[in-house]
Every structure is written in C-alpha cells, then in structure tokens.
C-alpha cells in the first residue's frame, strides 16, 4: 500500500469519530440483557423462583400490553422512537472531530482546534498589545473568530490584529482552510 493512501486513510480516520463509545455502550447493554435472559431461563428450567419475572409471565405481559393505559403506551413509544431515531442518525452522520490537518511530505499532522485557537490568541494579543486572557478565539471547521476586549482608554488597531492572525493562518496552512474574523469589543475593560 502506498504511503499516500496510508496518509489519506489516517487523515480521514483521525478527523472523524469512530463511534466506539456509543457502540460499546450499546454492546454492554445488549450483553447484560442477554445474560439476564439466560439467568431467568435457567431459573425457570430448574424450577427456582425468578429474579424478576419468569419467561412465561414475560410473554403473557407482552400479549396483554394493549391493556395498559393509553398515555403510558404513547409516552413510552415516543421516548423509544426518539432514542431509536437518534441512534439511526448517529450511525449515518460523519461525526466530525474538532481537528485540522497539516499535510507535508514527511508526515501528516493532526491538530486540535483548541491548539490553533490558543496560538492565534497569543499572536493576536501581542499584535493588539493586550492581555491574552482578554482574547477569546474560537476555531470551527472553516472559521477562526477572534474576539478582543481592549483595555479602557486604549485603541486596538484592528488592521494589525487582522494581519497578525492572517499571517499565522497562512503559516499553519491547515486543511480545511480557515477564514479569520476579528471582533474588537466596543466596551473596554479596566486593566485589560
């Protein structure tokens, strides 16, 4: 297998969720349910008292389910249907992770969006001469939004911040591409 296709496989798998947690949780629930059923059947064969209900009585209960109050049937039905729908949606959606990639000839680099955001925050606050703690950066799939709260009485040069952020983004050259948006808050903060 060529290195290129290996890299593209890694890149795809690292940026999408394997849905392992959900699948394992479901598998554990099924295992517990099956184990419980086996125990009840064995108890019934041995003629012992059931833990909760004998298999025969469980079947009778299922037959008589239409005698339950209507609201219980509807509420239980809606809850089950919603859970089922959610699971089906989870099985089809891509499950994108908050990560970006840098492709180079030597390696493929996977970066958490959080790391990009904190690096941008540092460079933006240097450019604006404010405290990094008053700079909020959120990085999503294709946007990096920088929100700055300037110190009261001080002007922040939006152009410089924009240049600094764009320069950093150009240097990282992540895929998918990030577009920047700079938002300087109107109201400053004392001592920021």
């Amino acid at each position, binding site marked *: *297998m060529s290195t290129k296709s*290996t890299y593209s*496989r*890694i890149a795809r*798998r*690292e940026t999408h969720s*394997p*849905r*392992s947690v959900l*699948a*394992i949780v479901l*598998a554990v629930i*099924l*295992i517990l349910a*099956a*184990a419980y*059923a*086996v125990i009840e*059947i064995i108890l*019934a*064969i041995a*003629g012992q008292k059931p833990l909760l209900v004998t*298999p*025969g009585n469980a*079947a009778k209960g299922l*037959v008589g*389910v*239409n005698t339950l109050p*209507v609201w*219980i*049937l*509807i509420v*239980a*039905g*809606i*809850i*089950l*249907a*919603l*859970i*089922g729908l*959610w*699971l089906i949606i*989870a*099985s*089809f959606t891509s499950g994108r992770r908050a990560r970006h990639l840098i492709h*180079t000839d*030597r*390696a*493929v*680099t*996977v*970066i*958490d969006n959080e*790391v990009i955001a904190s*690096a941008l*925050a*540092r460079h933006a606050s240097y450019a604006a001469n404010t405290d990094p703690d008053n700079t909020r950066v959120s990085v999503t799939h294709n946007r990096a939004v920088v929100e700055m709260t300037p110190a009261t009485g001080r002007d922040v040069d939006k152009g410089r911040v924009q240049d600094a952020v764009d320069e*950093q983004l150009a240097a*990282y050259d992540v895929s998918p591409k990030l577009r920047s948006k700079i938002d300087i808050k109107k109201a400053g903060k004392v001592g920021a």
Partner: protein
Amino acid sequence: MNTTNRGANRLLIFIVGLVVLILGAASILLGVLPAFSSGWKSTAPTVSTNVASTFSAAPLFATGSSWLYIALIAVLVIIVILLVRFIVKQGNGHTSELFHDDTTEHGSTIVKAGVAKEALQEALKDRDDLVSSSVTTYDVQGTNVLKISATARRGVSPKDVSDTIQTHLKALDQLLGFEVPAMIQISGGFRARVAKKTRLE
C-alpha cells in the same frame, strides 16, 4: 490509526436504533390507533399459544421445560460472545515492529518500534513548548506508521511543533536509512491548561 472496524460500530448502532424505533412506533400505534390495538388483541394470544405449543412439543425430559429453552440459551450465549469479541476488538492495531525486511540467505533484519520511540522521545523530552509527548507504532493496513502525540503548551504555534518533530523525524530517517510514515498529533486539553507557566525561547 487503529484497526477499529468503524463500519461494524455504525452497523450495530443502526440495527439497535432501528429495533428501538420500531418498538417505539408499535407502542405509539397501540396507544393511538384503535384498529391496531384490536388487531393486537385478536392476534397476540394466538401467536403466544402457538409459541407455547411449539415449546411444549420439544419437552426436556420430565422437567416440564423445553429443549427450545436450551437452544435459546445457546443463541443468547453466542450473541454475548460475539458482542464481547466486538468490544475487545476496538482500538487494536499497535505493533512492536518498525521494519522487517525480506529474509535473505544471511538472515533477516528487524527494527523494533522501541528504537524510534526512544530516539524521538529523547529528542522531545526537554522541549519547553511541549507539556508531554509519546511515540507509538501502528500497523495501518500492512504499513507500519509512527504516531507522535504531543501536548502543546497554551499559545504555542502548532506549525512550530509540527516542524520540529519533522526535523527529528528526518534525523531518524538518516539514522535508520529508511523512511517510516508518520502521524503527528498535537493536542491541547486539560494538561496544557494546568501546566506550570514557563518562559519560552
């Protein structure tokens, strides 16, 4: 990087979701549609009697139980075994070999993953901009791939970290005489946030 069968994960989630959805829909119909409810009332007891007579048609000696219960237990146990296997198979794919050449008449050469691990970790250990790093090797569809995970300090440029690690990788290439495909993972997270502050060069 690992060999988790993601298709199987999604298939299991889909099947369970479908069954739960059908149960829910049936329950709603029982509550809302009188026709469905009366249909259930007339059909369900018949089905139940038929099943019960099938069970009693295969008696288990004189216990009053049925062989079919034993069969049912067997099926359930097989399902449990398959599900346990499914869980255990998640996240595998590590390998301890970096390189294995074709055996010649003089023998064969094996480079263990530990070589790359030691070399890279030694190089990355004392860096100020990383809180921690680790190196593992995976077998990705027959190709051995190095995975270098690094937790970057807050504000460190991911590009710098990536470039540094690639420099070390190239040095490793020189040392080994061949290139191992590599994946670099740079993460932030809790450890980066609580790490002691330091001065970076």
